[in-house]
């Protein structure tokens, strides 16, 4: 039912849709992101803003941060593979809005251009998007054109780097590698000698 409405509203705007069980995903063309926000708010009656966040589809070059630092890191795939509703870029922004009257929600996704990393801001569509965009900017380095004040929200103001990007290492695991891999102490020499003697 919502698919029809969405198609009616912006047949050119929507690139791809997918429905699984009770959820609805819609992918929006980058230049129509704000228009789509207005459309779901006004025409579809999705008045409740749930969240907005980012996705980084690059596989982590650090795996699960459980490598042995004394050995060269294993080869890992760098193939970017997007999830539900597809995509063409490494970064995507996803947002969820809900209609309280119809008791349904939509997850909207949008590709973020790799070169500019900028999409339109939703802060004038949903007031609550303001903080979520600040968080996404801080964690992924995605810019939101038209946002009133893109400043740090969690991290200290001088922080460098974007922590939720997959190529940002989990520093705690680098300072102290994960136990069970390098924490095992080598057997004392005398015991080794004993073992040899008994053989």
């Amino acid at each position, binding site marked *: 039912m919502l698919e029809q409405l969405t198609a009616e509203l912006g047949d050119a705007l929507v690139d791809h849709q997918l429905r699984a069980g009770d959820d609805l995903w819609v992918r929006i063309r980058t230049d129509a992101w704000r228009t789509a926000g207005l459309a779901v708010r006004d025409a579809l009656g999705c008045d409740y803003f*749930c*969240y907005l966040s980012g996705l980084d589809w690059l596989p982590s070059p650090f795996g699960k941060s459980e490598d042995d630092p004394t050995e060269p890191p294993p080869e890992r795939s760098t193939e970017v593979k997007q999830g539900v509703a597809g995509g063409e870029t490494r970064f995507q922004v996803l947002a969820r809005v809900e209609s309280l009257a119809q008791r349904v929600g939509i*997850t909207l996704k949008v590709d973020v251009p790799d070169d500019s990393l900028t999409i339109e801001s939703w802060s004038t569509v949903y007031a609550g998007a303001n903080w979520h965009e600040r968080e996404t900017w801080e964690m992924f380095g995605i810019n939101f054109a038209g946002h009133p004040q893109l400043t740090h929200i969690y991290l200290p103001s001088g922080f460098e780097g974007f922590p939720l990007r997959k190529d940002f290492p989990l520093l705690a695991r680098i300072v102290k590698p994960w136990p069970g891999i390098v924490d095992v102490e080598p057997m004392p020499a005398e015991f080794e000698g004993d073992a040899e003697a008994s053989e």
Partner: protein
Amino acid sequence: MLTDRQRLAYIAGQAADARLNVELETEGMTLNIGPQHPATHGTLRIICRLDGEQVVWAEPSCGYMHRGYEKLVEVRTYPQINTLVNRIDWLGSFANEVPFILAAEKLMDVEATPRAQYLRTAFFELSRIANLVLFLGDMGVQLGAVTPVFYAFRDREHVLNLIESASGGRFHPNFNRIGGLKEDLPKGFIDETRAAMKTVRRFCDQMEELLVGNEIFEARTRGIGVIPREVALQYGLSGANLRASGVDWDLRRDQKLPMAWDKADWKVWTHPDGDCFARYWVRLQEVREAASIVDQLLGGLPAGPIMAKVPRIIKVPEGEAWVSTENPLGQMGYYVVSKGDTGPFRVKIRSASFNNISVTPWVLKGVYVPDVITILASLYFILGDIDR
């Protein structure tokens, strides 16, 4: 006879009154509320620019407790993440686990056994009581009434003891498993719960007598910090904050989840006013409803196994799932992206307090300094739930 000193003070006072009547000259100043303040439930700093006693601009500064859970979960397995998400809203920990486990189960196409669903729901409501009881007492403290908070700690103890007796953890039960619960109930649990629910109901009555009918309490909360329905929706407020603005929306009733809320008979309370009093009143009713849900569910508890059949090593198939539940603080949801591994590729944690607190720059504009505390207390946030 007046001394010279007294006469001078009198003249100064008269002059001050005259000045007041002519024109109130004030000077702008910046006031930091927090990071350490009892109204912040953790460490939140509110930067207020004041004009006299009035706030002209306010902005919360969070991040003092940011632990980066969304990064940490990427290097952990699903059962390990359960212990992490426990610590998001630490007063209602059990309720944090449920949506995450449900999201993983949705991707795996596993459903908990009926007994586990009933118990999950019952514990969910117990953690709601443990959480909101503290709010009901704490709100009094923020307004200068100390008694309620002692009652709250006294009666919350019974609920925490119940959670501890079943799971072994008072604050962080870590009791959910994919496919069910860790263990079945201990002996005598149901009888003890009935007694505890009686205590909780008595506590609610006491709060009603102590605060709701109290003249000072009403004067401090009625008409203060009004959030209209449209603003609440725009900012994504959820839970009791939204229902206090007159929106009849409760995820326990309004969505289909493999939980047992529909097996009990209860009511969603709303209040049309949207002020601090409404938020208090709605939560008070919610605790009563939660106690009734617990009683009903434990009364009709089905027999059977506590765990569904799941593989020993949990690998979640590729896909994306969004599950949210009505947590004590509001809508809490997880967007889980799996690539078919033992751990998720990405998890977006949508916590209630982050949205609830994002309305403060709007709602604090123009209020008086003492009301700032009332409004913050009535919005009711937990810092772990904002910062994650």
